[in-house]
């Protein structure tokens, strides 16, 4: 059994006309050194991971699994502008930070971790990707502990950020950094499990067999289809309480993190998948 022994949730809506909230002051209190050469994506990763780990000592070989749908998009835009618009060589620091793994490096350094360090990007399903990888490694003993997070940054102007993601003009956007510490074992923390299904009907049958009144159901954005809505109605899942409805590419993580630290009874089920790729069901139980 895998436990979520800690979780953190930074979710900040960003409204039209407003500046992005500065993160330096918060980081000064959370980081054990002042980092140079960090962009906003790295700042968000440091903020969320440090909050998640606060007051806890992780195993030095704890693996880091960082996911993001858009990755370090602000820095990527800057680098592309230097290269293409300005026809100049990008600044080395900007170029290096176009890689999402740069954020993982800083998280590891800040927390004193020396284990494996992954960055995975999968639009609309980055949380599922990193959770799946971490749980496989934990199950097979590749790592004894996993720090799993997703980070999504917002870039200005918001109109372009929405356009980039094919979002309607009135959609509220958010930045997020949501992290979990997972490890095998049993205890007081919530347990996390994962099952995979080839057929959607099989997943539904399984869910029916374990569903209890008060359980929560969250369908991934990749499932925003008739099937997802039908499923929500069928399980009488109701509205999930907690995080804002503001959007970022890995919003499922906000629900999972909020539920992980809550004392609410029941289980949160997260469904994700596609008829051609198969289906996965993450569930965070009591």
């Amino acid at each position, binding site marked *: 059994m895998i436990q979520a022994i800690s979780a953190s949730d930074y979710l900040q809506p960003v409204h039209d006309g407003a500046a992005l909230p500065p993160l330096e002051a918060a980081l000064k209190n959370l980081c054990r050194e*002042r980092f*140079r*050469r960090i962009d906003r994506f790295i700042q968000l990763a440091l903020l969320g991971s440090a909050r998640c780990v606060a007051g806890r000592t992780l195993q030095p070989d704890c693996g880091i699994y960082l996911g993001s749908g858009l990755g370090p998009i602000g820095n990527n835009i800057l680098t592309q502008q230097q290269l293409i618009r300005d026809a*100049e*060589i990008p*600044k*080395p*620091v900007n170029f*290096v930070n176009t890689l999402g793994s740069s954020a993982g490096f800083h998280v590891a350094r800040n927390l004193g971790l020396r284990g494996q360090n992954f960055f995975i990007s999968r639009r609309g399903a980055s949380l599922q990707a990193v959770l799946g990888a971490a749980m496989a490694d934990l199950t097979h003993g590749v790592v004894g502990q996993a720090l799993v997070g997703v980070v999504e940054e917002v870039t200005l102007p918001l109109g372009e950020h929405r356009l980039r993601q094919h979002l309607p003009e009135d959609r509220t956007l958010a930045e997020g950094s949501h992290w979990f510490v997972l490890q095998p074992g049993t205890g007081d923390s919530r347990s996390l499990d994962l099952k995979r299904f080839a057929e959607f009907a099989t997943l539904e049958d399984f869910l029916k067999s374990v569903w209890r009144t008060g359980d929560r159901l969250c369908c991934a954005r990749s499932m925003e289809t008739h099937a997802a809505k039908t499923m929500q109605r069928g399980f009488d899942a109701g509205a999930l309480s907690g995080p804002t409805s503001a959007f970022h590419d890995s919003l499922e993580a906000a629900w999972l993190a909020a539920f992980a630290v809550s004392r609410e009874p029941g289980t949160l089920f997260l469904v994700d998948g596609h008829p051609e790729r198969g289906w996965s069901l993450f569930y965070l139980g009591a």
Partner: protein
Amino acid sequence: MMDREQLKLELKQMIIRECEKDLRPEQIPDDAILIGSESGLALDSLDALQIALAVKQQYGKRIDGNNQTRVALTSINTLANFILSDSVP
């Protein structure tokens, strides 16, 4: 002709800005070693690249891999000498 003292001040400001150092220009001696383990500024190879690019953009002088130009990054004095020299950018 560029004023040498003014140039050295600009270079210190540029290094502080490009390398995100919590320093004031007067805290960087003109002859202090800039890069590497002997550097009191704790600048590394990525900082060297960052400075080289900034020098190219700001002064049109290219610091490349050959020894003569690489020496330019030894100190503020050598960097100022390099920029003020007649070498082809």
